[in-house]
């Protein structure tokens, strides 16, 4: 069935309204894509609802997750009529509640003045009126501490870099690149005056970070977020996922903002996240929803204390599968460097056999040597 759409002169205004709704729901749509959609509607011989819908997805979405958001936004928009000023879309939802909950990328980040948070401290739960009243503070750490963590993160990156790749780069001491030497000679009238050398380029570390934001981690939120932020910043292709009872990607909130803005953006994004942890089901959800994220070069960093309300065997099983798909698995526990620490939480005990390294946040500070904590539980070989 096809639903007639408004006349062409009205169509562009509807299109702009519709794109506004898509942006409100977290999909990053540039003006170029908006123009492309208008052009797409012009080249269609007849514009009915089905065509408009398919064209919107083809032009505006850049991932399957975004495609789902665009489709839902389209259906809501054309079922509900035009957007009214002052209301996000249908007039029935607040902007907070229409914000994306499962979108993988480019979530729209409310500006700092849209939150009621006091300066310097952002409170989870202050953004959405539907979110639990009690939030947890996410306070930026001092700049010196952040820089220290950043240095530790760089050291960690060098240490976890994968083996040298097949790609070769110029080097003073490597082997002679015959073709490049000939090419260089051509520029000198065919005379071989110097040899061009090359060496394998070291592989990059690719981080995938799973960050536990449940209630038991509240007192460590500030420090661990600074660590997560640092790890994201030192890797070109890191992905960050926060989890408690579900998984939310927060990469864009971190990537697009400086530290303090990222702190506010992430706190806002995780406004409704509170309560217990279901690590195993969350790891499984991560595995199902983001199947292409992990690869041979990925280092999976799980930042969690291991308090798990779900069945621990589910955690072990899920982590085993993730370990199989990644280069290595590193678990960062806020208690790992405390005196007398031993892995006692059921989640951590279940996870350690499938973890290559156990570290504490202190290991990322410059004064500490970065060395994994030895535990008896880590007896299973890392590679399957």
């Amino acid at each position, binding site marked *: 069935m096809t639903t007639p759409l408004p006349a062409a002169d009205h169509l562009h205004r509807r299109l702009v309204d519709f794109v506004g709704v898509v942006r409100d729901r977290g999909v990053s749509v540039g003006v170029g894509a908006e123009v492309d959609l208008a052009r797409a509607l012009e080249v269609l011989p007849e514009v009915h609802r089905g065509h408009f819908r398919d064209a919107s*997805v083809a032009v505006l979405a850049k*991932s399957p997750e975004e495609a789902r958001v665009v489709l839902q936004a389209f259906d809501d928009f054309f079922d509900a009529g035009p957007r009214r000023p002052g209301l996000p879309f249908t007039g029935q939802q607040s902007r907070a509640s229409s914000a994306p909950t499962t979108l993988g990328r480019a979530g729209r980040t409310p500006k700092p003045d849209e939150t009621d948070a006091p300066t310097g401290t952002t409170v989870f739960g202050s953004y959405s009126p539907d979110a639990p009243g009690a939030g947890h503070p996410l306070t930026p750490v001092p700049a010196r501490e952040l820089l220290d963590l950043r240095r530790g993160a760089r050291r960690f990156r060098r240490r976890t870099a994968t083996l040298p790749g097949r790609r070769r780069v110029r080097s003073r001491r490597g082997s002679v690149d015959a073709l490049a030497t000939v090419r260089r000679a051509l520029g000198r009238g065919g005379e071989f005056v110097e040899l061009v050398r090359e060496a394998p380029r070291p592989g990059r570390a690719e981080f995938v970070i799973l960050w536990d934001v449940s209630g038991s981690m509240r007192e460590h939120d500030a420090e661990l977020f600074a660590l997560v932020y640092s790890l994201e910043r030192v890797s070109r292709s890191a992905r960050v996922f926060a989890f408690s009872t579900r998984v939310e990607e927060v990469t864009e909130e971190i990537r697009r903002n400086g530290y303090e803005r990222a702190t506010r953006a992430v706190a806002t994004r995780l406004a409704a996240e509170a309560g217990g942890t279901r690590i195993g089901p969350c790891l499984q959800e991560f595995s199902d929803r983001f199947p292409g994220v992990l690869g041979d070069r990925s280092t999976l960093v799980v930042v969690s204390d291991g308090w798990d309300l779900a069945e621990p065997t589910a955690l072990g099983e899920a982590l085993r599968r993730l370990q199989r798909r990644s280069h290595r698995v590193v678990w960062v526990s806020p208690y790992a460097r405390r005196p007398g620490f031993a892995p006692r939480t059921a989640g951590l005990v279940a996870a350690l056999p499938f973890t290559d390294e156990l570290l504490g946040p202190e290991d990322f500070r410059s004064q500490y040597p970065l060395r994994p904590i030895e535990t008896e539980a880590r007896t299973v070989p890392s590679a399957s």
Partner: protein
Amino acid sequence: MHRMVADSDHWTTPEAVKQALAEQHYLADPALSMSVYLAAQLSKPLLLEGEPGCGKTELAKAVAAATRAELIRLQCFEGLDARSALYDWNFPKQMLTIRLHEHESGSRDSLEKEIFTERFLLRRPLLRALEESGPARPVLLIDEIDRADEEFEGLLLEVLSDFQVTIPELGTIRARRPPFVVITSNRSRDLSDALKRRCLYSFVDYPTADREVEILRARVPHVGEQLARDVVAFVQHLRGEKELVKRPGVAETIDWASALLALHRDSLDPAVVEQTLGCLLKDAGDVELARDRGLVHTVGA
């Protein structure tokens, strides 16, 4: 009835695209037909993402066949660079010319001008696609771009947005008409936003069972209805196993059905599934898992 024309420029509706592709035994859903139609009309590259074996590369082949255009394929790999993708200079020929020049009179300037002309230029797939002058728009397939380095995406930006290439010694070469560009990715890594912005996007997912039966019967015409349904039911069951490292795609379904026909089978039983499991599962761990869980014995269940 939609008018059938050879060139993708002249596709009149998304439905015409669907029909033209169907004639090449490629069954596209409405969303994919729309993406192909818009890519042709707007001269934008079409980025296809999805699991391996779901028909991304086949789409480019089907478009080329439907439009009777030349298919120019660039297979991406780690370390792919401008010399392999765009152009290179014929160094041996240049060296020979320099040596010959040493025995002749002539200025050094004229020699330099001579050896950096089109005569010494080796055209790689991207440049060939821009210079192609056949009757139909060429189809440029940039396959598995996620295997290439991120730097290579930067190289593609000029080619894909302006359909031109700048060669310092020769100047800027512009396409007489933009090729129909299909870029595929298996999502082993994220592509850059800059590249995605220049493309129309379509995600090619595993088909539904009914759709897969249609595809199978279109691609393997001799397979019977019942065998096709049994094959598809088993493959869909395998795809439900989330622990598999590599789930079978449509390509594997087609290969398996072809293998069964070659074995003169018109029905499935556990023994033949066991013997031909290698057509579907390409990882030793997956085969072991399928055996351990008795998946082979679910045939016909």
